[in-house]
């Protein structure tokens, strides 16, 4: 068997799988390689939020497309990916955050996003269980929502397989070299030749890039999450509390409440272990906003990585090595960016030009990484 491909995609998370999906629809001969299994990294650990409320114009435009693509998945895959528009409700407890919201809403309105500043009374109507003490306002977009990451990946895998894409799973890349084409050596001795390669390995992208001499300004951070038992549906939107000791959580369509917080200070490095302090912290933060969650049972708590860049925007581009593409540094937004990013990336890989202005996500922009962040 000869392992020659037009495109080899390293990393079977949402970015790699979405790109592979769109490439496979164009009849490109491709392989997806993962050191574990599809969704074993950050995508399989994320909480499935989808929002268009960004401050960066490129991110907003990308997310508008993603929302559209999420809404088409059920029809394309033949099963439900639990996409649901419950909205995103961002909460301001101080003037500075409110000013930030007002500024962002202006940018979002220019992009025709249905978002508005809402009062504590409106918030009470949106989420009757919420404790509005200290809340001065919120930003609400009803078109944001959620989907189930495992199901989305399963759908992509189904179609990629139907389109004769190959998978090399449980097989780590040990060597990546560029000669005329790229040659990839896997852990079990398998050799793969590809004309083009995409690195979409999230937190592992920096290490992988080093194999071909790329110094990518990416640094992983640990984020933890938890999920409760199923409960009757009692609130719709993702609630984001922007205080330094805030959190973000939503209720899935099956009734489970799933939530996270951003630790201050951050926890650098590729770490997927659960900490002792997380559950008491998240329980306190979530019940402060919705006191009735006190009687909800926590089922499970886990951790995964955000892959950060110095400016919080992703890196999606062709690297200085011709034919070697990078899509990483999603900074916590990989799942929601994924569908649109995969679509654009696939086209870029095939045609060499973007359908949208991606200057803000270019590998050539100035990105200085702090040594502290690489610990």
């Amino acid at each position: 068997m000869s392992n020659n491909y037009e495109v080899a995609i390293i990393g079977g998370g949402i970015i790699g799988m979405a790109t592979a999906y769109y490439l496979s629809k164009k009849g490109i001969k491709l392989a997806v390689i993962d050191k574990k299994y599809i969704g074993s990294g950050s995508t399989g650990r994320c909480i499935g939020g989808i929002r268009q409320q960004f401050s960066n114009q490129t991110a907003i435009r990308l997310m508008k497309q993603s929302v559209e693509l999420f809404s088409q998945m059920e029809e394309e895959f033949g099963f439900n990916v639990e996409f649901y528009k419950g909205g995103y409700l961002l909460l301001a407890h101080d003037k500075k955050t409110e000013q930030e919201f007002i500024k962002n809403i202006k940018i979002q309105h220019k992009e025709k996003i249905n978002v508005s500043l809402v009062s504590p009374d409106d918030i009470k109507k949106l989420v009757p269980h919420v404790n509005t003490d200290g809340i001065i306002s919120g930003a609400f977009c009803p078109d944001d929502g959620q989907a189930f990451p495992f199901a989305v990946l399963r759908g992509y895998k189904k179609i990629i397989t139907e389109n004769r894409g190959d998978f090399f799973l449980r097989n780590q890349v040990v060597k990546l070299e560029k000669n005329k084409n790229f040659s990839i050596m896997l852990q079990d001795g398998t050799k793969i030749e590809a004309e083009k390669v995409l690195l979409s390995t999230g937190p592992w992208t920096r290490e992988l890039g080093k194999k071909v001499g790329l110094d990518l300004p990416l640094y992983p951070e640990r984020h933890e999450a938890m999920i409760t038992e199923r409960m009757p549906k009692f609130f719709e939107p993702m609630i984001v509390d922007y205080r330094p000791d805030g959190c973000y959580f939503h209720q899935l369509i099956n009734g489970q409440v799933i939530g996270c917080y951003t630790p201050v200070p951050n926890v650098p490095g590729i770490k997927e272990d659960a900490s002792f302090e997380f559950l008491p912290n998240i329980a306190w933060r979530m019940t402060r906003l919705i006191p009735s969650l006190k009687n909800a049972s926590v089922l499970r708590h886990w951790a995964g990585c955000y892959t950060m860049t110095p400016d919080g925007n992703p890196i999606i581009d062709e690297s200085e090595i011709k034919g070697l593409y990078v899509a990483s540094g999603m900074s916590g937004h990989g799942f929601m960016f994924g569908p649109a990013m995969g679509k654009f990336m696939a086209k870029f890989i095939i045609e060499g030009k973007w359908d949208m202005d991606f200057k803000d996500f270019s590998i050539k922009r100035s990105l200085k990484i702090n040594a502290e962040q690489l610990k």
Partner: protein
Amino acid sequence: MKEKVIVCRCEDVTEDEVIEAIQSGATTLEELKRVLRVGMGSCQGRTCGPILVSLLARELNKNPKEIKQWNKRPPLKPVHMKIFIEE
């Protein structure tokens, strides 16, 4: 009609669905979980775990001892949020 055999009671997953997932490439409990949601309900895999191990072993011609256990996720059993915040 063939009778449905429920393997995971929390998430209503049948034996046929598990076998189909194994035939389409899943080789571990963690992969089954990511395809079928098995082990993610209230019992956290205590009921379905041993059955899934035997199905994986049978379908993959392995000794059940070779099938790796779930990643352990705290708090292991459902715990009310208020327990974590009580003084």
